[in-house]
Each structure stands twice: as structure tokens, then as C-alpha cells.
């Protein structure tokens, strides 16, 4: 008689995680780890912060396993936990970056300029944005979250989220216009 081998559903898998079954925990971490690190890398300025946020988020995901419901995609559910965890951690940390520190940091171009002459990219834009604006910008345009979802995840009003997006886009436009004017000047010389 053929034996029945049925792969575990995500609900069963997370139930096993909730029961602290080591195999299930490791499976979930291997499955989600890369995606979670991608998210924290987009939401955090520094690589070290992104690594810490990824670790904290994965811990939160395992500890919240009993809250996983069948109507949700495991990946999407884990993303939301990651976003909340990362945003809360960033609110608690003290901001050490100052303008002086930015000027003294090696390989950092001063604000608004591109010493290397290369076209300005997203990194330059992210440097100009406050953490809150960067996150709203990334959550909407990189990760596809709606305004309402961002408002709920970041615990801010909808109007504030929209304002941050508008301001971020305005910064982008200003950056591109300055870059274009600089190119024109170089071309004219």
C-alpha cells in the first residue's frame, strides 16, 4: 500500500514553530532569511543596522508563530512583522549622525554634490531623506505597500505618509535638476 507523504502547509509549519520544533524553526529561517534581510537593507541606512534589524525581525517572526493564520501568505505576514520591528527599533535608537560627521566621513560626498561626476542615483537620494521619509518612500515604491498599510505599519496618520512621499519626490526632483544644471555647466566649458 502506497504511503501517504503530504508536505506541511504553512499553517502546520508555523504550528510546529510555535511548538518550538527545531527543524521547523530552521526551515522557516532558511526560507525567509534572505527576503527579510533584503527588506531591512532597504529600510536601514547602515549595513550593521540592517543586519541587527534582520536578526530582531526573525526572532519576532518565530515568537509570533502562533499568530499566523491560513488566510495570509507567510512571506507577506513575515514582511509586516519585519517592517514593524525595524521601524520600532529605529525610533528607539539615538541618532548620532550629524552634519559634521557626514562631512568627516570618508568617501561621502557633501550634500548635493557628486565629486565623482557620475549620475546621481538612489543612494544619493536616500542620503538626503530623513529616515521617516526614506522608509515611506521605500515601503511604497520599492515594496508596493499602500498608503493605508504604511500608515498602519508605521503608526502615523495617512496624511503624514502622503506628505512624506510628496516631500521625498520633491527632493528627488531637486536633486535631478541640480545635477542637470551641473552637467550643463560642464558641457558649456
Amino acid at each position, binding site marked *: 500500500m502506497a504511503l501517504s507523504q503530504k508536505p506541511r502547509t504553512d499553517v502546520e509549519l508555523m504550528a510546529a514553530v510555535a511548538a518550538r520544533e527545531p527543524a521547523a524553526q530552521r526551515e522557516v529561517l532558511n526560507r525567509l532569511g534572505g527576503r527579510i534581510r533584503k527588506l531591512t537593507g532597504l529600510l536601514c541606512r547602515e549595513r550593521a543596522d540592517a543586519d541587527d534589524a534582520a536578526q530582531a525581525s526573525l526572532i519576532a517572526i518565530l515568537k509570533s508563530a502562533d499568530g499566523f493564520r491560513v488566510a495570509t501568505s507567510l512571506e507577506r505576514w513575515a514582511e509586516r512583522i519585519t517592517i514593524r520591528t525595524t521601524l520600532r527599533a529605529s525610533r528607539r535608537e539615538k541618532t548620532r549622525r550629524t552634519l559634521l560627521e557626514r562631512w568627516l566621513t570618508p568617501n561621502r560626498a557633501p550634500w548635493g554634490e557628486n565629486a565623482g561626476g557620475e549620475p546621481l542615483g538612489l543612494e544619493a537620494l536616500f542620503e538626503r531623506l530623513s529616515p521617516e521619509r526614506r522608509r515611506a518612500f521605500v515601503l511604497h515604491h520599492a515594496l508596493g505597500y499602500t498608503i493605508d498599510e504604511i*500608515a498602519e505599519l508605521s503608526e502615523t496618520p495617512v496624511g503624514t505618509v502622503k506628505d512624506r*512621499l510628496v516631500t521625498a519626490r520633491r527632493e528627488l526632483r531637486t536633486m535631478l535638476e541640480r545635477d*542637470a544644471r551641473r552637467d550643463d555647466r560642464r558641457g558649456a566649458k
Partner: protein
Amino acid sequence: MSVRWNELQTRWAAGEALTPEEERERLDGAHTDELAARELALFEDLRARGQGVDEVPRGLVDKVLAAVGARPRLFLLGPGEKPPSAPRAPRLRRAVLAAGAIAVPIAAAAATVLLLRTHPEPGSGDAVAILTPAPLARSELVLASGEVTAPGDARVGGRPLATGDSVSTGDGRACLGIDPGIDVCIGGRSQIVIESLRADSVRIRVERGTALAALSPREVGHTFALTADGVAVTAHGTVFAVDRPVAESLDVVVMEGAVQVSGNAAPGTLVPAHSRLAVRRGSGQGPAEAIGRGEEARFWALLAARGLWAKPELGVLEVRAAEPGLEVAVDREAPLTLPFHAFVPAGRRSLSLRTLAGDELTSSVDVVAGETLVVDPRELLARRALIDETAAVPSAASLLARARNELASGNAHAALTVYERLRSTYPTSPEARTVLVTIGKLELDLKQPARALKSFDAYLAAPGPLAPEALAGKIRALRALGRTADERRAIETYLSRHPDGFESPLLRQRLEVLQGR
């Protein structure tokens, strides 16, 4: 960058939905404007960055597992034996429930290895093996609901069960937890006896009624069986039930995985998932037959509250019997009859009492790890009656404050509901007029421009200090509805009445665009 394209791009970047024509116009802007093209390329780059995965930093998985404290697995070794090597981390595959005689390697996050060393006798060069009795599995009552009989001191939270102990039910249910990873639940009018708690061979005898077992994959060489009248049903990482309605008959029902049924001089039969095997005294075993979901559901229901005792930090919740027919549900699990005793996770738990008439009362209780919380439903019911008598309609000011709290938390729907309740409860109050503007803005945010227009028009019918905001909101609503001519007229009205208004610069730009059409 043209003004028109800039306006479209700003709206799109702010998360506003554009019409198909506007979206086409926005994308076409890149063909004629280099700056627009660069901006669109950057947004496309950003969108691409949101896809895919990053490399996981070395050691992150182990750090996380160490932080959450995965349960260690103990490996008992004999002389000369080596500990099993840790299996490779599986790629993105789902684990498979064990079936048959296949040994499933378990990847241990932190495996503790207990090594038996032989101690040579003095003067002898030969090793002497030390024999130890097989370890026993821990078994205890984890849930008792309704009429349950167990050894007096083996109640939920009491002493563990021992070999020979019996648990029986009348109109009730009970569950045993057997470590590691075995739950045995019995239905009404059932009785089980613990035959063996040897960790390598756990056996529970079903005297009568229905017993269901759910278990995680067994260690190599470790088995679990439900027995009845000389028949053994041995599991291999499964969910299965043994139903013994009368002494002469026995049904084995398998929901997941497979079980081996043997005994009564009959050869072993492997019964797969979603199947039933009937064993009758005198006539032996029939063939395994498929069973439907409806019948499976009857057995699954016995496991309904299993999540309650799954965590390590547990307290005991006891809910006393009260009026007949009263049921209790903990953390929205299935309702169970009273009295109720069970292990539940420590922390705040929701407790729902349901009467025969269908009334439901939900309350929160705090369970402390390692302690027993006793709840008398009569107290909860009496407290609820008192609250109903003294409940007062909230004031307009308190409703306003509540709505603003919801707004500050980003809960637009909830805020709207409270605002509308304020207007319906206090229709002639000053607050009821003022909130029309906020309601309109919320309706715009929620993509309800027609309703928003009504709200703004209602305010503008007898305008107050928020008239400029209301008119600006009306303009947005008209634009969202595509009523361009009305939008233009409304802008002209705004600019004539409020030439230095906050929205004036933007509205002048918009008017130019509209007039240029």
C-alpha cells in the same frame, strides 16, 4: 519638466491612483523630457530593488535559533556509538510528515549529546557496559472539560500520570500531553489506560469510546501506539484515532501520515491518511476504506484546543461550573463545557462565556506562569449586568476625542465610524458641523469622492471658519470625479474668496492647466 507632468508625477508619487489616460500621459512624459526619463528610471530602479532576496549574513540563523531557545534534542548513545551528524539545512522545501518506517532526521538547533562512557574495573583492561533502564516519557493531563475522572492528584497542573493510570470521561473531554510531541485527546464517554510510558515505546490502551493521537515524527526506534483488545495501532508521525464504540469492534481512522495496525494473529496492515480500517472480533480486519472530510472533522474537533498547551510558559486556567449549558472558549478556540481545567499560555488570555440562549460575554484574564487562576463565571456574568445598567451615552466631546485618537493611529475607517456616530447622536451640536470637513477628507482618502463631495457641500451650505478647507476639499472631490467644469468653477470661487489662501498657489497652477485645455 512640464507643469502638467510634474503634477501627475507628484500625485502618483504620493500614492494617488491616476486614471488610465493620466497614467499613460505620465509614462509618455519620459519620451520628450530627459529629466522625466531619469526620474522614471530611478523609480523603476527602486521598484526592482524591492524584489528578490539578499544574502543572509553568516551565522544569523544560528544566532536567531539560540535567541529563541529551540528545544534541544537528547541523543542517548551506547558504548562505542557516535552522535549522529547534524543534517544539512534543507533548501526551501516543506518538511514531510513521517510515514511508514522512514526515519526522519531532525535538524537540531542546539543538540545536547549525552554520552555513555564505560568504566573499566580496576585491574581489567576490558570495558564494562553499564545498563540503564529506558527513560520514561512525561505524561500529564493538559485539558479537562466537563465530566472527567482521573487519579485524584493527577489533575491539570498536578502530578504527572503514571503507568496504569486511567482517565475517563462522561459528558466531557480530556487531553493528555506526552513528551515529546504527543497529544492524546478523548471524547465523551471514553476511557484510556496508560500501558507504557517508556520513551522508546509509549502505549495507551483504549478501553472504550474515542481516542485521538497527534504526534510529531518519532526518533529512530521510538514508537507510539494506541491499543485495544489485542490490536495495536502504531504511529509513524501522524494524526489518527481509535474508535471503540462497543467491546467487539474497533475502528482506526487516520487523518495524516500512516499507521500500522497489527495484532490478533493478523499480519500488519498499513493504513494511509484519510482512511478507516474496521477491526471486528471474530471476523478480523476489513480493507482500509476512504473517509470523507465530514467524518474526519468529528475527530479533528477533539484536537481543537491543542494550541493552548503548546508553549513552554504555561499556567493553569480553571473555570468553575455555573448555569447548565454554559460553555467557555479560551483565546477564540472551540467552546468547551464546564467545569474547565487546562494548561494555557501565560499572559493575557481572552475568555468568552456563551450561554444556552446564545449570549456571549468576553473578558480578559491574566494567567501567571506556574500558577492556577480560578474563574467563577457567575462573577463575570454579574459584573456584565452591572456595566449594562450604568452604561452612559458618551458625550460629543468624548466621541470627538475618540475619533481623533483613531485618526492619530491611522485608523481611517474607525475614525469615520466614530465621527458619523457623533453626527447621528448629536446632530445639532457645533462638533457635528465641524467634523463634516474631516469626514470629507477621510472619505477622499478612502477613495469615496462622491460621499466626500456631499460632506463638503453640507458644510459649505452654512459655512464656518473651515470654509477654505471645505472648498479645497470639494475641488479635490470634483477632480477625482472627473467633473472638470465644476472643478474649474470651484477653483475660481476659491481664488476670488481666498486669494491668499494656503491652497491658492497650487490651485492657480491647476486653473492654468484647466484653462489651457
